[in-house]
């Protein structure tokens, strides 16, 4: 146990943990949304993210950007960033919709038992990640150095870089926007209605199929954003990147209370911090173990996660 190291690096660890947590949180939204509405774990969501991490690279590739390119000027950076985000969002969104269409809808049509959904989702996940694996020869693919990290704020040994600010702010903004959307807009109300009482929602004229597609789509969009942020932060992606981070995102969703949007944010940030602290205190090899131990402990005391379940179902 390295307490002095943890104390010394506490500031920087917190910042990097928050940035990582923000990505996890955006990713976790997809799990939470689908679970909130369908009560099903969408195992294929990890691949929705994966597709996003490659989509922006491919599009940047069209513009001749690869890991060896020079960093473009500010305008270029913003432009490429926007294009990359767009590409990732579209690709992830389309993947999410496709997963719903292929792996969920046919089963829903037949009123299949929940386990069947879990398994088709696993099948979809396996299929997508393996196809990506074969297409990329299972090699890592480097990310263009779009953002050269610079310290923007510094105090003591704690520095906050431009990228970290971008990630955290973007995650918070998206969360805020999504929260508003779900709670204020008509469609958002439709989503909550289906989550809280699907039959009654149908009686109000809500098209359940469309709401479900919408939920997958939103999850996909958020995963797309997370994917670009992941690329920029980690610096490379690989066919199994989704599976790895997917488990963390799923853990975060459960930690915060699966089905609960704010829970996903809380869970994600907490997980990011926890992993960094644990890595510092115990060694990096324990960072995942630490997050699972924390998960088990938290669930023992709060069996439905920190913030409780569901899109506003809290009291039901």
């Amino acid at each position: 146990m390295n307490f002095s190291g943890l104390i010394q690096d506490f500031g920087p660890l917190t910042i990097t943990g928050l940035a990582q947590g923000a990505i996890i949180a955006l990713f976790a939204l997809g799990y939470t949304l689908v679970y909130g509405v369908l009560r099903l774990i969408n195992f294929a969501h990890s691949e929705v993210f994966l597709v996003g991490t490659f989509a922006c690279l491919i599009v940047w590739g069209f513009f001749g950007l690869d890991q060896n390119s020079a960093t473009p000027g500010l305008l270029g950076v913003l432009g490429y960033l926007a294009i990359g985000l767009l590409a990732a969002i579209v690709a992830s969104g389309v993947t999410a919709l496709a997963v719903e269409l292929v792996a969920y809808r046919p089963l829903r049509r037949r009123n299949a038992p929940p386990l069947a959904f879990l398994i088709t989702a696993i099948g979809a996940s396996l299929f997508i990640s393996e196809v990506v694996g074969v297409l990329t020869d299972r090699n890592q693919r480097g990310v263009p150095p779009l953002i050269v990290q610079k310290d923007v704020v510094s105090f003591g040994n704690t520095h906050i870089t431009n990228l970290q600010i971008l990630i955290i702010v973007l995650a918070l903004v998206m969360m805020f926007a999504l929260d508003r959307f779900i709670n204020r807009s008509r469609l958002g109300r439709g989503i909550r209605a289906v989550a809280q009482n699907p039959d009654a929602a149908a009686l109000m004229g809500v098209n359940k199929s469309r709401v479900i597609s919408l939920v997958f789509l939103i999850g996909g969009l958020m995963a797309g954003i997370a994917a670009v942020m992941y690329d920029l932060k980690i610096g490379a992606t690989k066919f199994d990147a989704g599976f790895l981070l997917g488990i963390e995102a799923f853990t975060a969703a459960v930690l915060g209370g699966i089905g609960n949007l704010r829970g996903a944010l809380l869970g994600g940030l907490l997980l990011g911090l926890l992993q960094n602290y644990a890595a510092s205190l115990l060694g990096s090899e324990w960072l995942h173990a630490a997050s699972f131990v924390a998960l088990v402990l938290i669930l023992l005391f709060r069996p439905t996660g920190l913030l409780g379940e569901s899109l506003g179902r809290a009291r039901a």
Partner: protein
Amino acid sequence: NKDTSSDTASGSNCGYKLAFFGALTGSAANLGVNIEQGFELAVNQFNEKKGSTCIEVAKFDSQGAAEVAPGVARSLVADKKVLGIVGPPFSGESEAADPIFAEAGIPTITPSATRTSLASKGWKVFHRAVANDDAQGPAAAAYIKDVLKAQKVFVADDQSAYGAGLADVVKSKLGAAVVNSDKTEGDGKQTDFSALVQKVKSSGATALFYGGYYTNAGLIRKQLTAAGWKGTLLGGDGMKDQGLAKASGNAAAVGTVVTCPCSPPEQAGQDFNNAYKAKWNVAAGTYSDVAYDAANIFLQGIEAGNTTPEKLNNYLSTVNYKGIANTYKWTPEGELDPTLIKVWAFKFDASGDTKADQEIKTS
């Protein structure tokens, strides 16, 4: 004249197979493919010289996984035409597969499995065409001390048998110069190394030795650079792959040092490099040359009439073969003769390739 080939194949010392055993698919395929292509090139050249398919190439894909290896090894053993095996490339799969080869009595030459303990299992068929991990660790430490002259070194590893072993040796050889150490998870199990990066930065180290493979190392190099750490990353032959620079970008990778118990490809000679490139349309990779040599040793033995696995194995114990990468002569345990061991340091250059830096004196 296709049909004559089968005729001549049954001619003198023909009609046998040499096998490659190792990963051709899966995450670990890069190294396996390097080796298989070097091996296959040698056999092809041999057959061309003979003008027939005298010796067939048999490929067995183990995926580099210990749990898959036994079944594949048994199917290899079932093929009674196989006289010798080039492989397995990794130590884990060797542990699982070599007992089967030993039982079947088929000689193996591994061009890259460097776990020290493999030679002490009493497998009579085991031969290693490179130095084991015991040679590389001290060499890396010597390089850090004598060439880099780094005062503060951070040592990390990925907990693989290979990486951890290497890191432990480096740590013990460097002694007080090691300011801190850490472990990461293995390839594909961790991508965010911010905690490690932070530790490296805080430690004030000017060199980081990472015992592990290029996949993680590429990410670590990139994240270190992004976080503004300007020191040198060093590692063993597991990091000697263009994949490192592909992930980190050439600019970040420049100057990264890897040690390898292998010779610079230039030494393998233009002929080999050209032939390889012509056949496979890529440049020869790490250990392609050693695999080429291993195949040629087998071929020479078969040519000399050693047409049973047993005879071929006996032949190997007498061999003193000068190949393109090295000269080969084995101790009774199957290790390369200590006097023949070479460790080189390579450096990533601006094109993302590794260039020979210097041979490291280990003793």
